[in-house]
């Protein structure tokens, strides 16, 4: 099985090269065709038109687009993604500094989405045919219609302002230090033995992670329920009943495992969407992640930074798809035979 998974990862890595080239070229062209002036944005307001023209030449913005792209690509292949116009720092280093924050938030949200999604899906399935089914269905549709930023505002208002039981600004409470080892705050807090920081970081993570998780759990919930419906029409479920297995055992040991395959595929796709959903949530909760950085980059027409963040999103999605496909191989014996 390890060999099959390794082969799959190698195949995906090879396929990622043309995908990244196409995405980077598209991103580059679209950004350059936007009617924004990165040369003017990179100079102070008292710069004259002549100075802006000189800057445009320096930045290579007066060269043909393909030539500009090849220069960028050559630099990118050497690890140089350009300098941020706004921050005057390497775009790559800014992304590297903020990516762990976003990954930590997205991972926590995905765990919550998984718990609520699977739990809710099982509950919906359990309530099938009962008087509660229409109500449960309505609730799941209602949850499905609430986007992540609205969850963000609702949770902030209820738990942050009204009840005042959870913090909602930044990653830790004022007065506590932010240890820097891996960039993953929860891990770093444990590595330096600061449990107070760890606890505070957990408190600060709860609301944004719930906002994201709650927004993405209803889809998982409904797909799992549908998969379970389909699976319960399969012969082996009837045979299991005839063998005298309890309903709980049939559900948890047999049906759930098979129903989890389409759910897993969906979760992989959802994670990509959830990752981009961090953008608004990070701004609302003042989380210093990549989404927050993207907002700055867009506001300031910081093209090198937008390009670097855009590519990073693409890489993250490719990695997630590879992980999901690998898990699929692990869970589905049919794929291993092939």
């Amino acid at each position, binding site marked *: 099985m390890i060999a099959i998974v390794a082969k799959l990862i190698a195949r995906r890595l090879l396929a990622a090269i043309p995908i990244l080239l196409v995405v980077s070229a598209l991103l580059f062209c679209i950004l350059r065709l*936007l*009617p*924004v*002036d990165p040369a*003017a*944005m990179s*100079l*102070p*307001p*008292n*710069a*004259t*038109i*002549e*100075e*802006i023209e000189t800057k445009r030449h320096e930045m290579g913005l007066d060269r043909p687009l393909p030539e500009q792209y090849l220069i960028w690509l050559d630099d990118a292949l050497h690890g140089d993604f350009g300098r941020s116009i*706004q*921050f*005057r*720092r390497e775009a790559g280093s*800014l992304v590297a*500094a*903020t990516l762990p924050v976003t990954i930590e938030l997205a991972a926590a949200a995905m765990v919550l989405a998984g718990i609520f999604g699977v739990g809710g899906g099982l509950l919906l399935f359990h309530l099938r045919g009962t008087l509660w089914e229409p109500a449960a269905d309505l609730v799941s549709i209602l949850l499905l219609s609430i986007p992540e930023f609205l969850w963000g*505002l609702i949770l*902030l*208002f209820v738990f*942050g*302002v009204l*009840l*005042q*039981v*959870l*913090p*909602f*600004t*930044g*990653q830790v*409470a*004022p*007065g*506590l*230090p*932010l240890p820097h080892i891996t960039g993953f705050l929860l891990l770093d807090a444990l590595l330096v033995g600061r449990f107070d920081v760890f*606890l*505070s970081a957990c*408190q600060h993570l709860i609301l944004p992670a719930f906002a994201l998780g709650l927004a993405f759990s209803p889809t998982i919930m409904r797909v799992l329920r549908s998969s379970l419906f389909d699976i319960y029409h399969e012969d082996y479920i009837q045979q299991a009943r005839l063998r005298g297995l309890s309903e709980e055992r049939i559900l948890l040991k047999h049906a759930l495992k098979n129903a989890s395959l389409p759910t897993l595929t969906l979760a992989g796709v959802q994670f990509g969407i959830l990752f981009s959903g961090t953008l608004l949530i990070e*701004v*609302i*909760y*003042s*989380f*210093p992640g990549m989404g*927050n*950085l993207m*907002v*700055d980059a867009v*506001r*300031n*027409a910081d093209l090198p930074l937008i390009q670097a963040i855009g590519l990073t999103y693409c890489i993250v999605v490719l990695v997630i798809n590879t992980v999901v496909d690998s898990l699929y191989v692990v869970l589905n014996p049919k794929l291993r035979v092939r």
Partner: protein
Amino acid sequence: MVLKLPRRSFLQLALGTAATVGTSARIASAATNDAVTIGWPNDVPSWDPNQRFTPDAQPVFKAVFDQPLDQDPKLKLIPHLIKSWNLAPDGLSMAVELRDDVTFHNGDPMTTEDFRYTFLERIKSGIKLDTANSWKKVDDIVIESPTKATMKFNSPAPTAPQWMAFLGSYVVPKKYIEGQGYDNFLKNPIGTGPYKLAEYELNSRIVLERNDKYWGPKAKIARVTIQIIKDPSARVAAIQSGQVDCTLNVPVREVERFNKEGGFAAEINPITRVILLNVRADLAFADKNVRLAAHHAIDKAALSKAFYGGAAVPLSVLATPGTPGYLADFTFKYDPALAKELLAKSNFSAANPVKIGLAATNGQFPSDYDIARAIVQMWKNVGIDADLQVIEYAKYFELNRGGKLPEATLYSWDNATGDPEIFSGYQLNPKMPFSPWKDEDIGQKVLTLFGVADYDKRIAGYKDLERYAVENGATMPLLQSVLTVVRKKNLNYVKYDNGWVLPQTLQWT
């Protein structure tokens, strides 16, 4: 194995956990008399204070670094690192004398070497600094002693003293940067300011600790945490819940609500930022009658009342009340009847309206899009049919460069100095990237004023220019912008006319 927990015990455990989490969250947000947390709308772009001109970041920079000159709350220039200065009558040189008791946070003394390094050497070294633009006229800085130097300019620099207290002009430590390296300076910046940078997390928070060896008045609060909260609703929630003690730029409608609630003080402060319509001299606006009619048709007081609670002062010139270029005795009337008359002279009417374009940002400054929509309606009433288009602020320069801006664009312009050169001088200068008014007549008047060294003559010249520009429809000043501040009632600060909320002026009572 299944853990069996009685329902009562489970509830107790759940409530206990919630209470613990809640209590610790509350404890974390509680302020002490020696600490304060501020909800700030934007991060600093970099810890090199000379690098980027970001108005919102100036109060933060002013806590860590010092400027050669400072401004009092009414914006009058006052000595700071420079004890005295003398701009030559021809504006080609400026002698300065620095204080001799100033040290950087690492204990190194601040001298004219640092001054020369900041305003000449590092600019000439090719580092990308925005101050390279403001100080491009500096040819040399002649050091006479550790405290005395003379700046030599290649052309008259009448606003050199104002720029000494403006964007990016902070003295940085030569020895430290050259010795420790620039990258290290960016990671561990030191200045001569009333606070030292204790901690910084990009887009998250800035922690400042009082500099107990500060040469000037010591800050009252020992530790300031600046929490970067970009979302206005989140800033409102943060102050409401006590997670911050003070915050800025909340929606105007929230100010009244906070004032009704006990425990908060909320203010709408007019500041030295103008909201205006930047206009073109061609297309449908080539006709002066149409330009003036468009201006007369705007009810600025109604805009202020509707969108800024009446606190934004209606403006007739490109200067705010209290600044040197302001014309208190000049009013450009709201007069829709006159607007109709002017349009009629050019054969336009409500039945046969003149068609123009209006560009506006949405969210760049408070209520920008709403103001634009209201203006479209006001214009419609007199016979101007405006097509409103939303643009990104970042697109403004490109559209202006390519001559693609419509007849009018709603714009906001900040000028912490209050000096008229940085108001009308910049806005009407055809060589500047943000001015769509490309008319030689006014352009030449502006360029002449850029070379006038005598202060009184210069100010008088700008006053004439402002009136002339408005009377000719070259610009349409609308309102003085406002800054909203919400704070706990027992937290005081010094109010500056340019909107600075300086951490070193905060004080618990």
